[in-house]
Protein backbone atom coordinates (compact mmCIF):
# COMPACT_ATOMS: atom_id res chain seq x y z
CA UNK A 1 0.00 0.00 0.00
CA UNK A 2 0.96 3.58 -0.53
CA UNK A 3 0.22 6.53 1.75
CA UNK A 4 0.15 10.16 0.69
CA UNK A 5 0.68 12.58 3.60
CA UNK A 6 0.10 16.29 3.32
CA UNK A 7 2.57 18.48 5.22
CA UNK A 8 1.95 22.20 5.46
CA UNK A 9 4.54 24.83 6.30
CA UNK A 10 3.08 27.08 9.00
CA UNK A 11 4.23 29.56 11.62
CA UNK A 12 5.84 27.58 14.45
CA UNK A 13 3.41 27.00 17.29
CA UNK A 14 5.78 28.67 19.78
CA UNK A 15 5.78 31.96 17.90
CA UNK A 16 3.70 34.82 19.23
CA UNK A 17 2.26 36.09 15.98
CA UNK A 18 1.66 39.73 15.17
CA UNK A 19 -0.88 41.24 12.84
CA UNK A 20 0.63 43.45 10.12
CA UNK A 21 0.10 47.16 10.64
CA UNK A 22 -2.01 47.42 7.45
CA UNK A 23 -4.28 44.61 8.71
CA UNK A 24 -3.81 42.50 5.58
CA UNK A 25 -2.51 39.47 7.40
CA UNK A 26 0.01 38.10 9.88
CA UNK A 27 3.60 39.32 9.78
CA UNK A 28 5.75 36.43 8.57
CA UNK A 29 9.06 38.29 8.41
CA UNK A 30 11.80 36.66 10.51
CA UNK A 31 9.32 34.23 11.95
CA UNK A 32 10.21 30.60 12.55
CA UNK A 33 8.22 28.25 10.30
CA UNK A 34 7.65 24.56 10.99
CA UNK A 35 5.53 21.63 9.94
CA UNK A 36 1.88 21.91 10.98
CA UNK A 37 1.69 19.82 14.21
CA UNK A 38 -1.32 17.85 12.92
CA UNK A 39 0.71 16.93 9.85
CA UNK A 40 3.57 15.70 12.03
CA UNK A 41 1.00 13.39 13.56
CA UNK A 42 0.00 12.37 10.03
CA UNK A 43 3.58 11.51 9.08
CA UNK A 44 4.01 9.58 12.33
CA UNK A 45 0.86 7.56 11.66
CA UNK A 46 2.05 6.70 8.16
CA UNK A 47 5.40 5.62 9.60
CA UNK A 48 3.68 3.37 12.12
CA UNK A 49 1.63 1.80 9.32
CA UNK A 50 4.85 1.14 7.45
CA UNK A 51 6.58 -0.26 10.51
CA UNK A 52 3.60 -2.55 11.10
CA UNK A 53 4.13 -3.92 7.59
CA UNK A 54 0.89 -2.72 6.03
CA UNK A 55 2.43 0.09 3.96
CA UNK A 56 5.34 0.02 1.51
CA UNK A 57 5.72 3.65 0.53
CA UNK A 58 5.09 7.03 2.13
CA UNK A 59 4.99 10.13 -0.05
CA UNK A 60 5.02 13.55 1.65
CA UNK A 61 3.37 16.42 -0.22
CA UNK A 62 3.69 20.11 0.47
CA UNK A 63 2.10 22.89 -1.51
CA UNK A 64 3.36 26.47 -1.49
CA UNK A 65 6.58 28.47 -1.76
CA UNK A 66 10.01 26.97 -2.43
CA UNK A 67 10.79 26.83 1.31
CA UNK A 68 8.07 24.20 1.73
CA UNK A 69 10.84 21.90 0.60
CA UNK A 70 12.26 22.21 4.13
CA UNK A 71 8.98 20.91 5.51
CA UNK A 72 9.15 17.96 3.12
CA UNK A 73 12.77 17.35 4.21
CA UNK A 74 11.56 17.18 7.79
CA UNK A 75 9.00 14.54 6.79
CA UNK A 76 11.70 12.64 4.91
CA UNK A 77 13.97 12.86 7.96
CA UNK A 78 11.19 11.42 10.10
CA UNK A 79 11.11 8.48 7.66
CA UNK A 80 8.90 9.26 4.63
CA UNK A 81 10.29 7.80 1.39
CA UNK A 82 10.00 10.63 -1.08
CA UNK A 83 8.45 14.04 -1.49
CA UNK A 84 6.43 16.12 -3.91
CA UNK A 85 6.56 19.89 -3.80
CA UNK A 86 3.80 21.68 -5.67
CA UNK A 87 5.28 25.09 -6.05
CA UNK A 88 3.28 28.28 -6.08
CA UNK A 89 3.62 31.79 -4.71
CA UNK A 90 -0.15 32.13 -4.76
CA UNK A 91 -1.99 32.23 -1.43
CA UNK A 92 -4.02 29.02 -1.36
CA UNK A 93 -7.50 28.27 -0.09
CA UNK A 94 -8.65 24.83 1.14
CA UNK A 95 -10.44 24.10 -2.16
CA UNK A 96 -7.25 24.78 -4.15
CA UNK A 97 -5.29 22.45 -1.91
CA UNK A 98 -7.97 19.76 -2.14
CA UNK A 99 -7.95 20.01 -5.96
CA UNK A 100 -4.17 19.81 -6.13
CA UNK A 101 -4.22 16.80 -3.82
CA UNK A 102 -6.89 15.19 -6.02
CA UNK A 103 -4.69 15.71 -9.09
CA UNK A 104 -1.76 14.13 -7.26
CA UNK A 105 -3.95 11.21 -6.21
CA UNK A 106 -4.73 10.59 -9.88
CA UNK A 107 -1.00 10.34 -10.57
CA UNK A 108 0.07 8.48 -7.45
CA UNK A 109 -2.87 6.14 -6.83
CA UNK A 110 -2.42 5.95 -3.03
CA UNK A 111 -4.55 3.74 -0.79
CA UNK A 112 -4.60 6.13 2.14
CA UNK A 113 -4.35 9.91 2.17
CA UNK A 114 -3.61 11.53 5.53
CA UNK A 115 -4.06 15.22 6.26
CA UNK A 116 -4.16 17.21 9.47
CA UNK A 117 -7.66 18.00 10.72
CA UNK A 118 -6.64 21.64 10.39
CA UNK A 119 -3.55 23.79 9.98
CA UNK A 120 -2.67 25.95 12.95
CA UNK A 121 -2.31 29.09 10.84
CA UNK A 122 -5.77 29.50 9.27
CA UNK A 123 -7.56 26.77 11.29
CA UNK A 124 -9.86 26.08 8.31
CA UNK A 125 -10.60 22.39 8.93
CA UNK A 126 -11.92 21.91 5.38
CA UNK A 127 -9.28 20.43 3.12
CA UNK A 128 -9.68 16.77 4.09
CA UNK A 129 -13.44 16.89 3.77
CA UNK A 130 -13.31 18.68 0.41
CA UNK A 131 -10.77 16.19 -0.89
CA UNK A 132 -12.94 13.23 0.12
CA UNK A 133 -15.89 14.84 -1.65
CA UNK A 134 -13.90 15.55 -4.83
CA UNK A 135 -12.62 11.95 -4.90
CA UNK A 136 -15.92 10.48 -3.74
CA UNK A 137 -13.89 8.51 -1.16
CA UNK A 138 -14.85 7.66 2.41
CA UNK A 139 -13.50 10.06 5.02
CA UNK A 140 -12.46 9.51 8.63
CA UNK A 141 -11.96 12.94 10.13
CA UNK A 142 -10.52 13.83 13.58
CA UNK A 143 -8.98 10.38 13.87
CA UNK A 144 -7.63 9.33 17.25
CA UNK A 145 -7.01 5.73 16.21
CA UNK A 146 -6.57 4.02 12.84
CA UNK A 147 -6.44 0.25 12.35
CA UNK A 148 -5.85 -1.21 8.89
CA UNK A 149 -7.06 -4.71 8.03
CA UNK A 150 -8.14 -6.52 4.85
CA UNK A 151 -8.55 -3.54 2.59
CA UNK A 152 -10.57 -1.70 5.24
CA UNK A 153 -9.80 0.64 8.08
CA UNK A 154 -11.35 1.15 11.47
CA UNK A 155 -11.08 4.82 12.30
CA UNK A 156 -11.93 6.08 15.75
CA UNK A 157 -13.03 9.70 15.68
CA UNK A 158 -13.12 12.30 18.41
CA UNK A 159 -16.65 13.70 18.20
CA UNK A 160 -18.62 15.86 20.56
CA UNK A 161 -19.59 13.74 23.51
CA UNK A 162 -17.24 10.81 22.88
CA UNK A 163 -15.62 8.51 20.39
CA UNK A 164 -17.13 7.11 17.23
CA UNK A 165 -15.61 4.21 15.33
CA UNK A 166 -16.25 3.90 11.59
CA UNK A 167 -15.24 1.18 9.17
CA UNK A 168 -14.01 2.68 5.92
CA UNK A 169 -13.26 1.01 2.60
CA UNK A 170 -9.93 1.87 1.03
CA UNK A 171 -8.91 4.09 -0.62
CA UNK A 172 -9.81 6.66 2.00
CA UNK A 173 -9.04 10.10 3.37
CA UNK A 174 -8.26 10.53 7.06
CA UNK A 175 -7.57 13.67 9.04
CA UNK A 176 -5.57 13.50 12.26
CA UNK A 177 -6.52 14.69 15.71
CA UNK A 178 -4.10 15.51 18.51
CA UNK A 179 -4.36 12.24 20.37
CA UNK A 180 -3.71 9.93 17.41
CA UNK A 181 -0.04 9.54 18.35
CA UNK A 182 3.02 11.39 19.60
CA UNK A 183 5.26 12.13 16.62
CA UNK A 184 8.90 11.10 16.80
CA UNK A 185 11.84 13.44 16.35
CA UNK A 186 13.99 12.85 13.33
CA UNK A 187 17.04 10.84 14.42
CA UNK A 188 20.48 11.81 13.20
CA UNK A 189 20.88 8.82 10.84
CA UNK A 190 17.48 9.59 9.33
CA UNK A 191 18.32 13.28 8.96
CA UNK A 192 21.39 12.25 6.97
CA UNK A 193 19.46 9.71 4.89
CA UNK A 194 16.81 12.30 4.03
CA UNK A 195 19.43 14.17 2.02
CA UNK A 196 19.42 11.42 -0.60
CA UNK A 197 15.66 10.99 -0.87
CA UNK A 198 14.08 12.50 -3.98
CA UNK A 199 11.71 15.47 -4.01
CA UNK A 200 9.71 16.00 -7.21
CA UNK A 201 8.67 19.50 -8.14
CA UNK A 202 5.43 20.35 -9.87
CA UNK A 203 3.20 23.37 -10.33
CA UNK A 204 -0.58 23.75 -10.03
CA UNK A 205 -0.66 24.60 -13.76
CA UNK A 206 1.05 21.33 -14.65
CA UNK A 207 -1.58 19.55 -12.58
CA UNK A 208 -4.31 21.52 -14.33
CA UNK A 209 -5.55 23.25 -11.19
CA UNK A 210 -6.73 26.84 -11.27
CA UNK A 211 -5.64 28.62 -8.09
CA UNK A 212 -7.34 31.95 -8.67
CA UNK A 213 -8.63 33.29 -5.32
CA UNK A 214 -12.28 32.76 -4.53
CA UNK A 215 -12.18 34.49 -1.16
CA UNK A 216 -11.23 38.06 -0.33
CA UNK A 217 -9.73 38.89 3.05
CA UNK A 218 -11.25 42.13 4.26
CA UNK A 219 -9.28 42.66 7.42
CA UNK A 220 -7.10 40.79 9.90
CA UNK A 221 -7.24 41.95 13.50
CA UNK A 222 -5.82 40.95 16.87
CA UNK A 223 -8.32 39.34 19.19
CA UNK A 224 -9.40 41.77 21.92
CA UNK A 225 -6.77 41.95 24.68
CA UNK A 226 -7.69 40.01 27.78
CA UNK A 227 -7.57 41.58 31.21
CA UNK A 228 -5.00 40.12 33.58
CA UNK A 229 -6.49 37.51 35.90
CA UNK A 230 -6.52 37.47 39.69
CA UNK A 231 -5.71 34.68 42.09
CA UNK A 232 -8.47 33.74 44.51
CA UNK A 233 -7.77 32.57 48.05
CA UNK A 234 -10.28 29.73 48.21
CA UNK A 235 -13.62 28.54 46.92
CA UNK A 236 -15.55 30.98 49.10
CA UNK A 237 -13.52 33.83 47.68
CA UNK A 238 -14.18 32.57 44.14
CA UNK A 239 -17.92 32.36 44.74
CA UNK A 240 -17.92 35.79 46.34
CA UNK A 241 -16.10 37.33 43.38
CA UNK A 242 -18.33 35.60 40.84
CA UNK A 243 -21.40 36.84 42.68
CA UNK A 244 -20.42 40.33 43.75
CA UNK A 245 -17.76 41.45 41.25
CA UNK A 246 -18.54 39.58 38.04
CA UNK A 247 -22.25 39.37 38.81
CA UNK A 248 -22.59 36.07 36.94
CA UNK A 249 -24.15 33.99 39.71
Amino acid at each position, binding site marked *: MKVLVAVKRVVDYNVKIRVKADQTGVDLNNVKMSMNPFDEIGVEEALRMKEAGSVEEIVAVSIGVQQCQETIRTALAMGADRGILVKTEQELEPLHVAKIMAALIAEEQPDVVILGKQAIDDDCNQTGQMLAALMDWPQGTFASKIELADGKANVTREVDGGLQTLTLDLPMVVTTDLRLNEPRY*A*SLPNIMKAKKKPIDEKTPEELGVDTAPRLTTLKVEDPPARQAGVKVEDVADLVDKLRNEAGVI
Partner: protein
Amino acid sequence: MDFALTPEQQMIYDYGSKLAQSYDHKHWLEKARAHEFPREMWQRAAEDGFCGLMVPEEYGGGGLGLLEMALLLEGMADHGVPLLMYVVGPTMALGHISKHGSDQQKSRYLPDACAGKTLFCFAITEPTAGSNSMRINSVAKPDGNRFKLSGNKVFITGVDVCDYAVVVARTTPHDQVQRKTDGFTLFIVDLKAKGVDYHAIDMSIVAPEEQFTMFFDEVDLGPEDVIGEVGDGFNTLFDLLNPERVTVAALSCGIGRFAVNKAAEYASERVVFDGPIGAYQGVQHPLAVAKTQLEMASLMTRQAAWQYDNGEQAGPAANMAKYAAAEAGIMGVEASLQAHGGNGFTHEYGIYDLYSMVRLMRTAPINRELILNYIGERVLGMPRSY
Protein backbone atom coordinates in the same frame (compact mmCIF):
# COMPACT_ATOMS: atom_id res chain seq x y z
CA MET B 1 29.14 34.26 1.42
CA ASP B 2 26.35 31.90 2.42
CA PHE B 3 25.19 32.15 6.01
CA ALA B 4 22.29 29.73 5.57
CA LEU B 5 22.37 26.45 7.45
CA THR B 6 21.96 23.35 5.32
CA PRO B 7 18.62 21.56 5.84
CA GLU B 8 20.50 18.89 7.82
CA GLN B 9 22.12 21.49 10.08
CA GLN B 10 18.77 23.16 10.62
CA MET B 11 17.20 19.82 11.57
CA ILE B 12 20.04 19.16 14.02
CA TYR B 13 19.43 22.53 15.67
CA ASP B 14 15.69 21.75 15.66
CA TYR B 15 16.33 18.40 17.30
CA GLY B 16 18.16 20.18 20.12
CA SER B 17 15.31 22.59 20.59
CA LYS B 18 12.69 19.84 20.51
CA LEU B 19 14.62 17.71 22.97
CA ALA B 20 14.69 20.76 25.23
CA GLN B 21 10.92 20.94 24.96
CA SER B 22 10.35 17.28 25.86
CA TYR B 23 12.86 17.46 28.68
CA ASP B 24 12.23 21.10 29.26
CA HIS B 25 13.80 23.90 31.23
CA LYS B 26 11.72 23.04 34.28
CA HIS B 27 13.01 19.48 34.16
CA TRP B 28 16.57 20.78 33.74
CA LEU B 29 16.14 23.16 36.66
CA GLU B 30 14.83 20.42 38.94
CA LYS B 31 17.79 18.26 38.02
CA ALA B 32 20.18 21.21 38.35
CA ARG B 33 18.94 22.08 41.82
CA ALA B 34 19.25 18.46 42.90
CA HIS B 35 22.62 18.00 41.08
CA GLU B 36 21.11 15.00 39.38
CA PHE B 37 22.21 13.95 35.92
CA PRO B 38 19.33 13.84 33.35
CA ARG B 39 20.02 10.26 32.38
CA GLU B 40 16.75 9.68 30.53
CA MET B 41 17.25 12.70 28.32
CA TRP B 42 20.82 11.60 27.60
CA GLN B 43 19.62 8.15 26.63
CA ARG B 44 16.97 9.55 24.35
CA ALA B 45 19.51 11.70 22.49
CA ALA B 46 21.90 8.76 22.28
CA GLU B 47 19.23 6.52 20.78
CA ASP B 48 18.45 9.20 18.25
CA GLY B 49 22.13 9.23 17.26
CA PHE B 50 23.24 12.54 18.75
CA CYS B 51 25.82 11.43 21.34
CA GLY B 52 27.92 10.12 18.49
CA LEU B 53 27.39 13.14 16.28
CA MET B 54 31.16 13.68 15.81
CA VAL B 55 32.03 9.98 15.65
CA PRO B 56 32.63 8.36 12.22
CA GLU B 57 29.70 6.36 10.87
CA GLU B 58 31.64 3.09 10.89
CA TYR B 59 31.81 3.32 14.71
CA GLY B 60 28.12 4.05 15.16
CA GLY B 61 28.25 7.83 14.87
CA GLY B 62 26.95 10.54 12.59
CA GLY B 63 30.26 11.46 10.98
CA LEU B 64 29.62 15.18 11.41
CA GLY B 65 31.66 18.01 12.85
CA LEU B 66 31.98 20.58 15.56
CA LEU B 67 29.63 23.01 13.80
CA GLU B 68 26.78 20.51 13.97
CA MET B 69 27.62 19.79 17.62
CA ALA B 70 27.58 23.50 18.40
CA LEU B 71 24.21 23.82 16.65
CA LEU B 72 22.76 20.93 18.65
CA LEU B 73 23.93 22.51 21.91
CA GLU B 74 22.67 25.93 20.85
CA GLY B 75 19.28 24.40 20.09
CA MET B 76 19.14 22.92 23.57
CA ALA B 77 20.56 25.91 25.45
CA ASP B 78 18.39 28.40 23.53
CA HIS B 79 15.47 26.62 25.16
CA GLY B 80 16.95 26.59 28.62
CA VAL B 81 18.74 23.24 28.67
CA PRO B 82 22.54 23.71 28.73
CA LEU B 83 24.44 20.48 29.43
CA LEU B 84 28.13 20.56 30.34
CA MET B 85 28.36 16.79 29.86
CA TYR B 86 27.86 17.30 26.13
CA VAL B 87 30.99 19.42 26.08
CA VAL B 88 33.31 17.04 27.93
CA GLY B 89 31.90 13.75 26.61
CA PRO B 90 30.51 13.71 23.06
CA THR B 91 32.50 16.76 21.96
CA MET B 92 35.89 16.52 23.64
CA ALA B 93 36.43 12.87 24.55
CA LEU B 94 34.59 11.21 21.67
CA GLY B 95 35.74 13.83 19.19
CA HIS B 96 39.34 13.30 20.25
CA ILE B 97 39.24 9.52 20.21
CA SER B 98 37.64 9.71 16.76
CA LYS B 99 40.36 12.00 15.48
CA HIS B 100 43.48 10.70 17.22
CA GLY B 101 42.62 7.29 18.67
CA SER B 102 43.85 3.95 17.27
CA ASP B 103 41.46 1.71 15.31
CA GLN B 104 41.44 -0.60 18.29
CA GLN B 105 40.42 2.20 20.67
CA LYS B 106 37.76 3.39 18.27
CA SER B 107 36.09 0.02 17.99
CA ARG B 108 36.48 -0.66 21.68
CA TYR B 109 35.03 2.61 23.02
CA LEU B 110 33.04 4.50 20.41
CA PRO B 111 30.07 2.25 19.58
CA ASP B 112 29.02 1.94 23.24
CA ALA B 113 29.52 5.64 23.87
CA CYS B 114 27.42 6.51 20.80
CA ALA B 115 24.67 4.25 22.12
CA GLY B 116 24.73 6.04 25.47
CA LYS B 117 25.91 2.91 27.25
CA THR B 118 29.16 4.50 28.43
CA LEU B 119 30.02 8.10 29.28
CA PHE B 120 33.31 9.98 29.19
CA CYS B 121 34.67 12.91 31.16
CA PHE B 122 37.81 14.97 30.66
CA ALA B 123 40.48 15.73 33.25
CA ILE B 124 43.29 18.24 32.92
CA THR B 125 42.89 20.73 35.81
CA GLU B 126 44.91 20.15 38.99
CA PRO B 127 44.91 21.96 42.31
CA THR B 128 48.17 23.70 41.38
CA ALA B 129 47.60 23.86 37.62
CA GLY B 130 44.40 25.41 36.32
CA SER B 131 45.18 28.31 34.05
CA ASN B 132 48.72 27.06 33.76
CA SER B 133 48.37 23.57 32.27
CA MET B 134 52.14 23.39 31.73
CA ARG B 135 52.47 22.83 35.44
CA ILE B 136 50.40 19.70 35.70
CA ASN B 137 52.18 17.03 37.65
CA SER B 138 50.00 13.98 37.39
CA VAL B 139 52.71 11.64 36.24
CA ALA B 140 52.34 8.40 34.30
CA LYS B 141 55.68 6.84 35.07
CA PRO B 142 56.92 4.50 32.34
CA ASP B 143 57.27 0.95 33.71
CA GLY B 144 58.51 -1.38 30.96
CA ASN B 145 56.04 -0.78 28.15
CA ARG B 146 53.36 0.12 30.72
CA PHE B 147 52.73 3.17 32.95
CA LYS B 148 51.85 3.90 36.58
CA LEU B 149 49.67 7.00 36.85
CA SER B 150 49.74 8.99 40.09
CA GLY B 151 48.43 12.45 40.79
CA ASN B 152 45.46 14.58 41.57
CA LYS B 153 42.83 16.35 39.43
CA VAL B 154 40.22 18.87 40.50
CA PHE B 155 36.91 20.34 39.24
CA ILE B 156 36.34 17.41 36.92
CA THR B 157 32.78 17.47 35.63
CA GLY B 158 30.54 14.42 35.79
CA VAL B 159 32.94 11.76 37.07
CA ASP B 160 30.20 9.97 39.04
CA VAL B 161 28.08 9.31 35.94
CA CYS B 162 31.02 8.36 33.72
CA ASP B 163 32.79 5.12 32.91
CA TYR B 164 36.00 6.54 31.48
CA ALA B 165 38.05 9.71 31.67
CA VAL B 166 40.37 11.19 29.10
CA VAL B 167 43.26 12.24 31.35
CA VAL B 168 46.08 14.62 30.47
CA ALA B 169 49.22 13.51 32.31
CA ARG B 170 52.94 13.86 32.04
CA THR B 171 55.08 10.92 30.99
CA THR B 172 58.11 13.14 31.61
CA PRO B 173 57.88 15.43 34.65
CA HIS B 174 57.68 19.14 34.06
CA ASP B 175 61.18 19.81 35.48
CA GLN B 176 62.86 17.23 33.23
CA VAL B 177 61.69 18.37 29.79
CA GLN B 178 63.59 20.58 27.38
CA ARG B 179 60.55 22.50 26.20
CA LYS B 180 57.70 22.93 28.64
CA THR B 181 55.29 21.56 26.04
CA ASP B 182 57.14 18.23 25.86
CA GLY B 183 56.25 15.13 27.82
CA PHE B 184 52.42 15.33 27.80
CA THR B 185 50.47 12.15 27.14
CA LEU B 186 46.73 11.59 26.87
CA PHE B 187 45.27 8.44 28.41
CA ILE B 188 41.90 6.75 28.48
CA VAL B 189 41.45 5.77 32.14
CA ASP B 190 38.84 3.27 33.29
CA LEU B 191 37.21 4.85 36.33
CA LYS B 192 36.73 1.42 37.89
CA ALA B 193 40.47 0.65 37.71
CA LYS B 194 42.44 0.00 40.87
CA GLY B 195 43.95 3.19 42.28
CA VAL B 196 41.26 5.56 40.94
CA ASP B 197 39.29 7.45 43.58
CA TYR B 198 37.08 10.56 43.43
CA HIS B 199 35.00 12.79 45.69
CA ALA B 200 32.34 15.36 44.88
CA ILE B 201 33.23 19.00 45.52
CA ASP B 202 30.52 21.01 47.22
CA MET B 203 29.95 23.52 44.38
CA SER B 204 27.52 26.43 44.55
CA ILE B 205 26.72 26.35 40.83
CA VAL B 206 23.22 25.34 39.77
CA ALA B 207 23.88 22.57 37.22
CA PRO B 208 22.85 18.94 36.88
CA GLU B 209 26.50 17.88 36.66
CA GLU B 210 28.71 17.78 39.74
CA GLN B 211 32.45 18.44 39.91
CA PHE B 212 34.96 16.08 41.48
CA THR B 213 38.43 15.83 42.89
CA MET B 214 40.16 12.76 41.47
CA PHE B 215 43.05 10.81 42.93
CA PHE B 216 45.23 8.44 40.95
CA ASP B 217 47.44 6.10 42.93
CA GLU B 218 49.74 4.00 40.77
CA VAL B 219 46.97 3.28 38.27
CA ASP B 220 48.17 0.63 35.83
CA LEU B 221 47.93 1.80 32.19
CA GLY B 222 49.19 0.21 28.99
CA PRO B 223 50.11 1.40 25.50
CA GLU B 224 46.54 0.51 24.47
CA ASP B 225 45.34 3.34 26.75
CA VAL B 226 47.44 6.06 25.12
CA ILE B 227 45.63 8.36 22.68
CA GLY B 228 48.10 9.35 19.96
CA GLU B 229 51.83 9.25 20.69
CA VAL B 230 53.54 9.03 24.08
CA GLY B 231 55.03 12.42 24.98
CA ASP B 232 53.28 14.15 22.09
CA GLY B 233 50.03 15.04 23.87
CA PHE B 234 50.52 18.77 23.67
CA ASN B 235 50.45 18.70 19.89
CA THR B 236 46.88 17.43 19.84
CA LEU B 237 45.71 19.13 23.05
CA PHE B 238 44.09 21.99 21.19
CA ASP B 239 41.96 19.53 19.25
CA LEU B 240 40.36 19.09 22.67
CA LEU B 241 40.50 22.62 23.99
CA ASN B 242 39.29 24.49 20.89
CA PRO B 243 36.14 22.35 20.58
CA GLU B 244 35.63 22.90 24.31
CA ARG B 245 35.77 26.67 23.83
CA VAL B 246 33.43 26.52 20.86
CA THR B 247 30.79 24.40 22.57
CA VAL B 248 31.00 26.40 25.79
CA ALA B 249 30.46 29.49 23.63
CA ALA B 250 27.39 27.83 22.12
CA LEU B 251 26.04 27.12 25.61
CA SER B 252 26.69 30.71 26.73
CA CYS B 253 24.86 32.14 23.71
CA GLY B 254 21.99 29.77 24.38
CA ILE B 255 21.63 30.64 28.05
CA GLY B 256 21.77 34.34 27.16
CA ARG B 257 19.15 34.01 24.42
CA PHE B 258 16.87 32.01 26.66
CA ALA B 259 17.08 34.65 29.40
CA VAL B 260 16.62 37.56 26.98
CA ASN B 261 13.62 35.93 25.30
CA LYS B 262 12.01 35.30 28.68
CA ALA B 263 12.57 38.92 29.62
CA ALA B 264 11.17 40.23 26.34
CA GLU B 265 8.02 38.24 26.94
CA TYR B 266 7.75 39.22 30.57
CA ALA B 267 8.43 42.91 30.04
CA SER B 268 5.89 43.10 27.22
CA GLU B 269 3.16 42.08 29.64
CA ARG B 270 4.21 43.38 33.03
CA VAL B 271 2.48 46.66 33.78
CA VAL B 272 3.88 48.79 36.60
CA PHE B 273 2.84 52.33 35.68
CA ASP B 274 0.73 52.90 32.61
CA GLY B 275 1.95 50.62 29.86
CA PRO B 276 4.08 47.49 29.86
CA ILE B 277 7.59 48.01 31.28
CA GLY B 278 9.00 46.64 28.00
CA ALA B 279 8.14 49.97 26.39
CA TYR B 280 10.65 51.77 28.63
CA GLN B 281 13.96 52.08 26.91
CA GLY B 282 15.68 51.64 30.26
CA VAL B 283 14.35 48.08 30.14
CA GLN B 284 14.36 47.57 26.38
CA HIS B 285 17.85 48.77 25.49
CA PRO B 286 19.87 46.52 27.83
CA LEU B 287 17.97 43.57 26.34
CA ALA B 288 18.56 44.86 22.80
CA VAL B 289 22.28 45.33 23.48
CA ALA B 290 22.54 41.84 24.96
CA LYS B 291 20.66 40.37 22.00
CA THR B 292 23.08 42.06 19.61
CA GLN B 293 26.12 40.84 21.53
CA LEU B 294 24.67 37.32 21.65
CA GLU B 295 24.07 37.16 17.91
CA MET B 296 27.57 38.47 17.18
CA ALA B 297 29.07 35.90 19.53
CA SER B 298 26.99 33.17 17.94
CA LEU B 299 28.30 34.06 14.47
CA MET B 300 31.87 33.95 15.77
CA THR B 301 31.15 30.58 17.39
CA ARG B 302 29.94 29.18 14.10
CA GLN B 303 32.96 30.58 12.31
CA ALA B 304 35.34 28.98 14.82
CA ALA B 305 33.54 25.65 14.48
CA TRP B 306 33.67 25.88 10.70
CA GLN B 307 37.40 26.62 10.78
CA TYR B 308 38.01 23.68 13.08
CA ASP B 309 36.02 21.34 10.83
CA ASN B 310 37.87 22.57 7.77
CA GLY B 311 41.29 22.00 9.28
CA GLU B 312 42.08 25.68 9.56
CA GLN B 313 43.78 27.34 12.52
CA ALA B 314 40.77 27.77 14.82
CA GLY B 315 42.54 29.12 17.92
CA PRO B 316 41.92 32.85 17.48
CA ALA B 317 38.24 32.47 16.56
CA ALA B 318 37.59 29.82 19.23
CA ASN B 319 39.07 32.06 21.93
CA MET B 320 37.29 35.18 20.70
CA ALA B 321 34.01 33.26 20.45
CA LYS B 322 34.36 31.93 23.99
CA TYR B 323 35.20 35.38 25.33
CA ALA B 324 32.42 37.14 23.44
CA ALA B 325 29.82 34.49 24.19
CA ALA B 326 30.53 34.33 27.92
CA GLU B 327 30.35 38.12 28.20
CA ALA B 328 27.19 38.28 26.06
CA GLY B 329 25.59 35.46 28.02
CA ILE B 330 26.28 37.18 31.33
CA MET B 331 24.96 40.43 29.89
CA GLY B 332 21.79 38.68 28.73
CA VAL B 333 21.08 37.02 32.08
CA GLU B 334 21.86 40.27 33.90
CA ALA B 335 19.50 42.32 31.72
CA SER B 336 16.83 39.64 32.03
CA LEU B 337 17.17 39.55 35.79
CA GLN B 338 16.74 43.30 36.05
CA ALA B 339 13.71 43.27 33.75
CA HIS B 340 12.07 40.60 35.90
CA GLY B 341 12.33 42.66 39.09
CA GLY B 342 11.83 40.59 42.23
CA ASN B 343 10.33 37.75 40.21
CA GLY B 344 13.75 37.14 38.68
CA PHE B 345 14.94 35.88 42.05
CA THR B 346 12.11 33.42 42.61
CA HIS B 347 12.34 29.71 41.92
CA GLU B 348 9.21 30.06 39.81
CA TYR B 349 10.86 32.33 37.23
CA GLY B 350 14.32 30.82 37.74
CA ILE B 351 16.33 33.62 36.09
CA TYR B 352 18.78 33.95 38.95
CA ASP B 353 19.24 30.19 38.74
CA LEU B 354 20.90 30.73 35.34
CA TYR B 355 23.37 33.19 36.72
CA SER B 356 25.89 30.81 38.28
CA MET B 357 26.08 28.72 35.13
CA VAL B 358 26.56 31.61 32.74
CA ARG B 359 28.97 33.36 35.07
CA LEU B 360 31.03 30.19 35.27
CA MET B 361 31.74 30.63 31.60
CA ARG B 362 33.83 33.74 32.21
CA THR B 363 36.11 31.63 34.43
CA ALA B 364 36.05 28.12 32.97
CA PRO B 365 37.13 26.24 30.98
CA ILE B 366 39.58 29.07 30.36
CA ASN B 367 39.28 32.37 32.11
CA ARG B 368 38.68 35.71 30.47
CA GLU B 369 42.16 37.01 31.31
CA LEU B 370 43.99 34.15 29.66
CA ILE B 371 41.89 34.57 26.52
CA LEU B 372 42.73 38.25 26.42
CA ASN B 373 46.40 37.38 26.94
CA TYR B 374 46.15 35.00 24.00
CA ILE B 375 44.51 37.58 21.78
CA GLY B 376 46.98 40.26 22.84
CA GLU B 377 50.05 38.12 22.42
CA ARG B 378 49.21 35.60 19.71
CA VAL B 379 46.80 37.55 17.57
CA LEU B 380 48.06 41.09 18.01
CA GLY B 381 51.71 40.10 18.52
CA MET B 382 52.22 42.09 21.72
CA PRO B 383 54.84 41.19 24.38
CA ARG B 384 54.19 38.44 26.96
CA SER B 385 53.56 39.35 30.57
CA TYR B 386 54.02 35.92 32.15
